[in-house]
């Protein structure tokens, strides 16, 4: 019999699998039942994750293993790093679900949408909890499949085109990851995620092969993490509805890629070993190029969502950069940015979605004076944008502080240069938006204004960005309190560095 400790990780995944399955079977017209299932599944998941957190803090071990063949095992575990990611995705998913219910209201094919929406989060949780590279790849591919219907949800020609590009990138990326994972397995035997890696017994003759595998893994995961030059799908996927963009950028797809890279560096290869075969500097350079390139492109985008997409390309590579600059401070900065970027970026996308649905505004050039019409939304947006720039006391400041310190600590001063350039560029594409939104008068009537009574827009659209905007400040202000993301990241780093 499997015990409770084995059940719990399965239940965390099943909570959204089952609600997704039932939503598919349900008649599309039964809106209330679907909403209850959606929220019920999301709340249940948050509760289960909470239980798991509580248990882990008391020293419980949550693990489950199913052998599939002699060499392959489907395995889940709740390590501190898994929990870090799973808490992020479960929490933000709940908010995104609320947002999506308000966003779509009565548009067609919602059974399909929310069914795949649930499956998608199920895959993300699986990625977080995967205990070995095989299980990781399984959920990573499922994530590709379940996000496709969300990206093309509108069914318009442009959406299908975006979806096609998304698939080409991710399917090929998935194949590369699979090749690398299998190759690695033939060399190392097993690839259980282990702190400080599994490369202890590898002989120096195999370093060459291991470098190739490393490059393939980074390339494969780099597709989803949108690292330059593999980022082409992300701006095209902007055709997706706003809740999907929020999910892609903050919770699921891009994060899964970044999480994969971090997993490979820390828990498969191990930092020490990565430095030994000298793959960290190329990775840091690739991340830096992505950071600068993404920001440069963002400046020239007039479409708000496209600007945010290029911003994501840039910001997600902070995580990779923190990973590649080997040193406890930088690592802390990289890991904590996993959460910080998620909270900030989801706020920005929620806000962009609100502008589009409430006012019909989707371009930066149309945003004059939106702050007066939608003060709450734009306050949240501004806070998150300032966070992205790295203003204290927001979450973004904490990240950049740790990254910069970490780079100096290990003598890689050039990284500070990258951070400074990036910060300037961030300011160049975010500050104008904040300026026109608050200080310019509206140009005239809004393109497609919809009234929602006393509030500036529906409460279900307003509440999520306000909450995440508030969080952006709170996790920055209380960064040093116990149980803050930073505190947690430090704990993970202590494990990785074996202190």
């Amino acid at each position, binding site marked *: 019999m499997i015990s409770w400790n084995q059940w719990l990780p399965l239940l965390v995944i099943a909570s959204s699998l089952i609600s997704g399955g039932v939503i598919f079977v349900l008649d599309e017209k039964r809106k209330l039942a679907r909403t209850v299932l959606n929220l019920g599944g999301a709340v249940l998941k948050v509760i289960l994750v909470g239980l798991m957190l509580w248990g882990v803090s008391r020293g419980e071990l949550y693990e489950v293993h199913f052998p599939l*063949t002699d*060499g392959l095992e489907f395995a889940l575990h709740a390590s501190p790093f898994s929990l870090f990611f799973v808490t992020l995705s479960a929490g933000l998913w709940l908010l995104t679900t609320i947002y999506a219910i308000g966003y779509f209201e009565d548009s067609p094919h919602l059974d*399909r949408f929310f069914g795949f929406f649930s499956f998608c989060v199920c895959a993300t949780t699986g990625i977080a909890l995967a205990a070995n590279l095989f299980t990781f790849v399984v959920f990573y591919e499922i994530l590709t499949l379940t996000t496709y219907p969300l990206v093309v949800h509108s069914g318009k020609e442009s959406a299908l085109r975006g979806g*096609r590009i998304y698939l080409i990138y991710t399917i090929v990326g998935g*194949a590369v990851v699979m090749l690398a994972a299998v190759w690695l397995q*033939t060399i190392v035997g097993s690839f259980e995620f282990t702190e400080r890696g599994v490369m202890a017994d590898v002989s120096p003759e195999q370093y060459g092969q291991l470098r190739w595998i490393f490059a393939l893994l980074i390339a494969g995961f780099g597709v989803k993490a949108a690292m330059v030059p593999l980022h082409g799908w992300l701006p095209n996927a902007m055709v997706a509805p706003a809740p999907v963009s929020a999910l892609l950028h903050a919770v699921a797809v891009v994060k899964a890629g970044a999480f994969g890279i971090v997993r490979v560096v820390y828990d498969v290869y191990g930092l020490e070993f990565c430095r030994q075969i000298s793959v960290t500097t190329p990775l840091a350079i690739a991340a830096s190029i992505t950071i600068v390139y993404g920001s440069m492109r963002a400046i020239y985008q007039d479409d708000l969502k496209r600007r945010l997409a290029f911003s994501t390309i840039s910001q997600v590579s902070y995580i990779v950069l923190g990973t590649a600059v080997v040193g406890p401070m930088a690592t802390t900065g990289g890991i904590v940015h996993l959460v910080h970027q998620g909270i900030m970026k989801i706020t920005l996308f929620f806000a962009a979605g609100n502008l589009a649905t409430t006012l019909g505004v989707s371009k930066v050039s149309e945003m004059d004076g939106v702050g007066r019409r939608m003060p709450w939304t734009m306050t949240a947006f501004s806070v998150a944008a300032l966070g992205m720039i790295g203003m204290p006391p927001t979450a973004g400041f904490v990240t950049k502080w740790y990254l910069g310190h970490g780079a100096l600590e290990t003598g890689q001063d050039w990284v500070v240069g990258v951070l400074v350039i990036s910060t300037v560029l961030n300011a160049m594409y975010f500050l104008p938006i904040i300026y026109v939104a608050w200080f310019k008068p509206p140009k005239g009537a809004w393109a497609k204004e919809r009234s929602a009574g006393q509030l500036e827009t529906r409460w279900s659209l307003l509440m999520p960005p306000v909450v995440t905007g508030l969080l952006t400040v709170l996790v920055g202000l209380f960064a040093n309190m116990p149980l803050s993301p930073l505190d947690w990241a430090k704990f993970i780093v202590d494990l990785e560095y074996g202190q």
Partner: protein
Amino acid sequence: MSLEAVFLGLIVLPLLGGCLAFLSRPLALPANLVVAVGQLICAFELARTVMAQGPLSYKVGGWDAPLGVNLYADGLTAMMLVMVAVVGGTIVLYTAGAMRSIKDDTYDQQLFWPINLLLLASLNALFLSGDIFNLYVTLELLTLSAVALIGLVGTVDALTAALRYLLVAISASLLYLLGVALLYSIYGTVDWHLLGDQIQVDQVKGDQASLLAIALIVSGLLLKTAVFPLHFWLPPAHSSAPTAASALLSALVLKASFYIILRLWFSVFPYAEFQNAGTLLTTLGVAAILWGSLQAINQTQLKAMVAYSTVAQVGYLFLVFSLASDAAVAWDAWSATVLFAVSHAVGKAAVFLAAGSLQYATGSKQIDSLAGIAREQPVTVLAFATAGVVLIGLPPSGAFVAKWLLLQSAIASGQWPLAAVILTGGVLAAIYVFRVLSLSLLRCEPRESCEPRETRPVPRLMQYATLGLAIVAITLGMMASPMMELLKVDAPFSANPFSADPVSVSTFREVAP
């Protein structure tokens, strides 16, 4: 349940049911349903017993070889029988749903029922055959029922395809029979266990007659399995047959001749000395994967696309002949191939059934007419997508686990080109599967920009039988563990946990020869 009943249930039950279905039209459907349930129970019972007791043999009527017919079941046999029972049973349900609501007066639909049971009986008998002559007999029966199914519609296209299939299949059978006769004249036995032992002892190398016999047998079977470039007959036959028949042919009938190759190659022939021949077979497989996938991408008709996909997927089954030459990875490659075959059978059957439903709904064979069909046929499109994932080989399908193992074997034995082909095949499959799915999700804005179209409702039983099979197909990877355990029973490469002598289940008195 007594094991005799299990053996007989798998062969005699569908045969009797077939006769009944032929004689009495009202009883045709009930007979099919009873057989579907009966063979499902028997197949699982057999798998359970094989797992617990090791390989089984059964002398029909208590007569020993060379006079009697010897039935034999090990892990591979049981696996194949379960596959037939699951896929065959679902096809019966689907067809029942189709015939209840859809009346097609152009041909006699009811004739499907007896032929279907004859086909299932010959499949079961083939997998249970313990000697190469009975393999011939059952293979021939299988061919005849398959030809009848293809020609059932009676259109010119269908009859041409059926006749071509008949000619190809009969010549293939003759090649095979010639080989069998030669082997019998040399070794004096047709029992494949004894034959295997004899060939190992006598060292076939250099023996021209034996080599000729083996070449004849293998080339006959290659023709039947439609491996590139002998696939020419398959796309017209599989795409012009009625939907249920297409599913049966692609999913099960091809696997039967492949099963014989796999069985003979690794359990009877001295494959270690046929490295070049093995490489040749694998090269054909590689060509099949690439050519079949590209052709599938080029098709404008839905069922033709699915049929070419079969050509490609059959290619994967032939990678084992080169991979298994490295003893270290032989078991992985062999078990992955069987897993792939089963996975493809379930997945491809679901894809064909879904394609048939879509074709019925739109009244057109063209892929282009599927624009926006997901709105009208969400369940069927979901089934097509789910089973399509199996064709691409993504998790959690069995094909994913199988591809992982094949890839592992290819890399571990240093056969990098094969690794590249395995991955490329998946990407190409994604192109043809998602081409259909993408089109089906299209929404015309404004509505007037699309051609107006009437779609017919598809009976619910058809929709849900297809979806059920697709869900089985996609979750098969997570059930790999029991499947692998079953395959280990008397497998050519794994450490056999059971004695070499099969447990005899005959309760009859042994008759001395």
